[in-house]
């Protein structure tokens, strides 16, 4: 059996007093799309940079395709990986074609620049300066530079942060088609939705550690058979009476309203609604949904993921 695309053991990185990465174990198989999830500052980027050979770990080992990062074999590994760093700003006044050609020149083999532009739908922008591109186009160019060496393993660090939904969808398409050719991907994100769509397996990171690992499905199912009920109301609610219901696991205030975690059955839902009616409380904007990865994170850490909160405004970011 061939060596895994990524294998790391007891990876530790300290920045001064702060323990950025606290002993991470990770294996990503060839052909797998693996997601590292977590809030900002969880240690995702530091972890990825150690895997990319950009940052030296304080202790622990990293192997890509069974090869350790060492001075003698650095270039050999660099030929086999493609990297998109978090918010890299390429040269302002080079055109799309020139940037891709420059990066293509670093690799012994890979697609032609024309092929890259076709694949990433950048043909119309080929003569445009990088600085004139939209956020989505810039990210596609960045992805193009990562794909320039026809890599076996692709690292993507927060590739869709700040992109509008359409640009995000387009990027997902490119990543998927890359993976369909049997290549491996390691992606970091704080969008749970992105991880659920793209990744075969996910590790949730918090404070430098992996706190959960599995397929998106298994992580959600790990929460048990639950659903969430959310509503707002202008009237006073007797919270104690609601949480006394056997169907209700937890009740929490959320903004102007409430968020209930209840048993995943229709009768539980009608019990909650019955209680609201008994208290003569009119729910506004009542919604129910199945558990998501955001709920998994909330359940594991007791905190709401930052990315999930700002998701609605992400499209407006520059």
């Amino acid at each position, binding site marked *: 059996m061939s060596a895994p695309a990524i294998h790391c053991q007891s990876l530790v990185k300290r920045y001064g007093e702060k323990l950025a990465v606290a002993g991470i174990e990770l294996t990503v198989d060839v052909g797998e799309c693996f997601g590292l999830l977590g809030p900002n500052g969880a240690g995702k980027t530091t972890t990825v940079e150690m895997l*990319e050979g950009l940052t030296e770990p304080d202790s622990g080992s990293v192997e890509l395709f069974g090869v350790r990062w060492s001075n003698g074999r650095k270039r050999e590994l660099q030929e086999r990986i493609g990297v998109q760093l978090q918010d890299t700003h390429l040269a302002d006044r080079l055109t799309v074609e020139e940037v891709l*050609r420059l990066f293509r020149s670093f690799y012994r083999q890979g697609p032609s620049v024309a092929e890259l532009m076709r694949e990433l739908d950048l043909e119309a922008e080929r003569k445009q300066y990088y600085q004139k591109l939209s956020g989505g186009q810039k990210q596609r160019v960045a992805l193009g530079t990562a794909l320039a060496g026809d890599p076996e393993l692709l690292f993507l660090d927060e590739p869709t942060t700040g992109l509008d939904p359409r640009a995000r969808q387009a990027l997902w398409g490119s990543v998927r088609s890359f993976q369909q050719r049997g290549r491996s991907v390691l992606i970091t994100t704080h969008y749970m939705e992105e991880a659920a769509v793209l990744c075969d397996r996910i590790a949730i990171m918090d404070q430098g550690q992996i706190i959960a690992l599995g397929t998106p499905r298994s992580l959600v199912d790990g929460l048990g058979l639950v659903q969430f009920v959310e509503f707002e109301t202008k009237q006073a609610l007797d919270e104690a009476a609601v949480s006394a219901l056997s169907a209700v696991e937890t009740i929490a205030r959320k903004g102007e309203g409430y968020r209930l975690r209840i048993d995943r059955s229709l009768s539980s839902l009608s019990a909650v609604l019955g209680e609201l009616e008994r208290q003569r409380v009119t729910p506004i904007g009542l919604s129910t949904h199945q558990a998501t990865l955001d709920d998994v994170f909330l359940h594991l850490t007791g905190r709401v993921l930052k990315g999930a909160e700002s998701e609605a405004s992400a499209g407006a970011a520059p």
Partner: protein
Amino acid sequence: MSRTDAPNPLEELVKARVREFLREPGYVFWVFGFPLLMAIGLGLAFRSKVPEPPRIVVTARVADETARALTSSPRLNVERQSRNDAERSLARTKVDLVVDQPDPHGPLVFELDTAQEKALLARAVTDDVLERAAGRRDSIAIDEQHVVKAGSRYVDFLLPGLIGMNLMGSSMWGIGYNLVQARKRKLLRRYAVTPMRRSHFLLSYFFSRSLFLVLELAVLIGFGRLVFHSHVQGSILALLVAAGLGASAFAAIGFLIGARLSSTEAAGGWMNFVQLPMWLLSGSFFSYERFPHWLKLPIRLLPLTAANDALRCIYNEAGALSSIPFELAVLSVWTLAGFVIAVRAFRWQ
């Protein structure tokens, strides 16, 4: 979809350097436009002028015939004034000499301040003009030869100084600032995860700077030739070698500034900190000979001074490389020391 007809990395890196530079209007102005403006401005302000003829006043009492003889000479600037006005003009040194004739049949009287050089000249010329009008003949034949010593005008002094300053500025911006900006934008990190050879990266700066060096020299020398008729007295090859060594020294300092900083503001500050003393001391615009004696050796150890002196020696005095060993040594030491430290200190992130 794998292909092996890959573009050449060194060629692509050099092209990227050159394009980045040429497409940044600010760079182009500071490297090419600004020195030319300086040359025009200073060259015009300090151009050597043909001396004005002496100014004299002939009072109303002087006989018309005498006055006519003086007025018609192109060697004098003559005005006729009343006796009183003439006195006043002389007192205010508006004129160099007053010609008076108190008695209509008596002798002419020259009034002048003999402490004034121009007054002495005015007297000699006025005297000569009058004597010639009265029929003086030269008893000795004298031929005049008019010479301007090549490379002795201010603009000849200025042009090599501008070349030196240009070498410094363009290396600072083209290397120091460029590196810091690339680091700030995490572009250096991005390069560091590719199999790009570090030597290619370094060489791309060497080649792009060399190319611009030739361009910058051509523009300034060509401009001096066309506009000021200023010529390189020594060999162009020697000038190129000296300029190349100067550029290397500044490149090394540029690398030093760009080795670690990741804030462009800090880079700008450091660049000014490094350049300002040299702008003032290194004699780009005016000779540093007027500084006190004890300051001269430190000044001569500055790279810009060494570059300026080396360029001037070749440009104006037709010197060879063998006549500027001190300057070449200073530049070599800066180059070597700068690169060694910069390479050790360099950070990709």
